[in-house]
């Protein structure tokens, strides 16, 4: 009887414990997805993949081949590709489709954007448990391809996909920004490129390049147009300048710290050079590559993923051949304030999966997402631009090493500027950074760039950049991007703090149950002893 009772109580306790654990497990997963015990290979799954390319046919071909190869491995999964050429457009479409529950299954995106998607309940699948799953997780034994283990994903890149301690994405490709320079013109102006490019150097040379001949043409190029310094992403420009200055931008939890004296000083400096005609932006003028290749720009800052457009011999070009100018192109990391402590942004696409009612469909999405990390996709895609693969498995492969070693062999696959741009990032991984991700961080990023855009436009429009202007600018930009509405999350508690009431009640009830069991055992034992005494 005692045995039966013990068994009964033990079973009950075990059941409660399991329920407790499973409840907590679900909580960790935000209750949004439970990994199926088996992937049903007899069931047909159709998943959508929203992918971004750099208006580059080779990249879209790689996506298509990846899908074909994956479908051969998993004949029950059909992947429908939707192509984008702009992260912003993907972001807008996801936001729209969130409202109608028609999000894609797999989506190339930025962590900043994921932070916004997470405003919807259980929208984006938490990947923590999927990473670790022994069957279908990273390096899982049931995978039909040679995917990377978790340890084989570059830890720094992987950490960029963590939001509030949980993984919501995997890195897909990584890039940084680079400064593509017309070395011929720099030297024609009497300058020698330093070992590390500085802001002071760029501004000085750019100002010098604005000198004109009597006929109105520029001395350095003999043309009527010269924009010595053009920046593609002014968001990145402001973010990197602030970082290099050690100035505020935002806290990890979403406190905005963009509008301060350092920002004002930077804007005033930029305004001074715009006034001289030394600086412009992509939004105001056009793609830096177009001006660089036409001999109308000396310093073009753009992503390393835009390297195939840069230089006289660039494999891709948007301008006519007769507009191309011969010059020597060199590629540098972005300019620095402190050459001893270089800092540059880490960027590039990540990929997430969206939750669906059918857990098998989510698992199918996860399998495809992992396939994008296999060498069969990582290496060819990285070769298309100045990207680097996100896995050590790909970076250390013979194939990728061979690719890097053949820099400059031709002006297509081995285009020197492109490979040098990739090497630039590989050599500076320890110098890269990312900005904090929170709901609203995408707006803050836009606001940072808008400050530069507005100041540049205003100077061109002959407006005075004084204290009153800056004050109004900060007010207008904060209102435009609704920065005052960004919710600051509570700090992650470093101590556990007071026990929640519900947990206290639970533990009390559990203790009471054990007390009753103990009481029963004591009573039963004393009865037995009493009976034994009577017999004797």
């Amino acid at each position, binding site marked *: 009887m005692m045995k039966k009772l013990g068994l009964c109580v033990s079973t009950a306790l075990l059941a409660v414990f399991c329920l407790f654990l499973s409840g907590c497990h679900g909580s960790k997963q935000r209750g949004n997805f439970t990994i199926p015990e088996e992937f049903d290979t007899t069931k047909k799954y159709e998943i959508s993949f929203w992918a971004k390319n750099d208006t580059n046919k080779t990249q879209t071909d790689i996506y298509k081949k990846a899908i074909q190869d994956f479908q051969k491995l998993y004949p029950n999964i059909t992947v429908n590709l939707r192509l984008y050429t702009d992260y912003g457009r993907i972001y807008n479409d996801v936001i729209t489709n969130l409202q109608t529950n028609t999000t894609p299954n797999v989506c190339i995106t930025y962590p900043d954007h994921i932070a916004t998607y997470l405003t919807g309940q259980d929208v984006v699948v938490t990947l923590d448990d999927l990473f670790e799953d022994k069957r279908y997780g990273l390096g899982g034994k049931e995978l039909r391809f040679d995917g990377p283990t978790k340890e084989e994903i570059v830890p720094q890149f992987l950490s960029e996909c963590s939001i509030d301690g949980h993984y919501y994405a995997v890195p897909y490709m990584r890039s940084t920004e680079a400064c593509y320079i017309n070395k011929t013109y720099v030297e024609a102006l009497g300058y020698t490129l330093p070992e590390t490019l500085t802001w002071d150097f760029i501004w000085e040379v750019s100002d010098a390049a604005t000198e004109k001949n009597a006929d109105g043409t520029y001395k350095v190029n003999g043309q009527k147009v010269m924009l010595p310094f053009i920046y593609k992403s002014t968001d990145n420009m402001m973010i990197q300048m602030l970082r290099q200055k050690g100035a505020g931008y935002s806290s990890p939890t979403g406190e905005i710290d963009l509008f301060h004296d350092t920002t004002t000083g930077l804007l005033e400096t930029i305004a001074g050079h715009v006034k001289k005609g030394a600086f412009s932006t992509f939004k105001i003028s056009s793609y830096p590559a177009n001006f660089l290749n036409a001999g109308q720009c000396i310093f073009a800052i753009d992503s390393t993923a835009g390297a195939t457009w840069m230089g006289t011999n660039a494999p891709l070009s948007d301008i006519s051949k007769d507009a191309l100018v011969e010059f020597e192109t060199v590629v540098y990391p972005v300019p620095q304030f402190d050459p001893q402590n270089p800092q540059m942004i880490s960027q590039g696409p990540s990929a997430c999966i969206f939750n669906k009612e059918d857990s098998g469909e989510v698992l199918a999405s996860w399998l495809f997402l992992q396939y994008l990390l296999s060498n069969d996709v990582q290496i060819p895609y990285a070769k298309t631009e100045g990207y680097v693969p996100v896995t050590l498995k790909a970076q250390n492969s013979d194939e990728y090493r061979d690719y890097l070693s053949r820099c400059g062999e031709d002006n297509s696959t081995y285009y020197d500027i492109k490979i040098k741009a990739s090497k630039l990032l590989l050599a500076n991984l320890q110098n890269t950074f990312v900005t904090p991700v929170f709901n609203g961080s995408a707006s803050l990023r*836009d606001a940072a760039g808008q400050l530069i855009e507005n100041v540049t436009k205003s100077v061109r429009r002959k407006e005075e950049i004084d204290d009153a202007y800056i004050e109004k600018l900060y007010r207008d930009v904060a209102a435009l991007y609704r920065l005052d509405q960004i*919710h600051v999350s509570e700090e992650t508690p470093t101590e556990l703090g007071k026990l929640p009431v519900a947990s206290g009640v639970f533990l009390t009830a559990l203790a009471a149950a054990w007390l009753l069991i103990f009481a029963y055992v004591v009573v039963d034992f004393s009865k037995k002893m009493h009976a034994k005494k009577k017999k004797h």
Partner: protein
Amino acid sequence: MLYESESSLNDKKRKGKIMKLKKIAIAALAFSTMVALSACGKNENNDNADTTPTAVPTVEATATPPTTDPDPTKAPTETPAPTDAPAENKVMTYAEYAAAELDTPVVIEAYVQAKQSWWDNKATVYTQDENGAYFLYNMACSEEDYAKLVPGTKIKVSGYKAEWSGEVEIVDATFEIVEGSFVAEAKDVTSLLGSDELINYQNQFVSFKGMTVVAAGQNDAGEDVAFLYNWDGSGEEGSDLYFNVSLNDKTYTFTVESYLCDKTTDVYAAVKNLKIGDVIDMEGFLYWYNGVNPHITSVK
């Protein structure tokens, strides 16, 4: 037996006590289970709150999106205040507008000829008067007002003259609808192709006649094709269409801009049906991107 009977009695009593203890234990365990589950449920909400710092999912969903890719399908938000628009002043003639310096304030009156896109209270519109054309890029415009901008509608526009990759446009503009209507006839500029004079008709509704379709590129099989999705074939159905036409041994690239004429339009279908060697007449707007790059609206 006594023992047995006593034992039986004791067993019965014990059973009763056991049952009582069991019931209490089960009740306690059941209670604790419920508490545990409810606690976990509460944790779930807390986790979500941690993950999504903004409790109400409205900030980012309605926040200003990137401005480079307008999408006319999006939901409306409030009309932005025209903080960047220049102070109202005299309406310029087209000649005065053409002569104005870049980055200076301009005020013009013109007639809507076609709408390219609306997104986040910004509209991109082709307008024209009897003397010339004006491309209005990302002009402040509510969705309600956008619906009113049918071809022929006269509007008064205040903004700044700007140039992007050779395309002269009015940016940071506001507008008001005024009395009047005019729809331009297509101006035949075929003979001006390749000449310096063509730019004088920038952004106007124009026509090109008797041009021959030549290969735009090659497909995956290496065969010449008459059009490409995107400039290099990297797009798909719904992307911009690029095709090449030649005249007098010179080849020009024309575009069906997918915001202006999407995949449901006749011109989109017509270009997809082009064959190399076809001789065609076209109408469209004389857009500029590092040179002439007409946005075609009809092909015959």
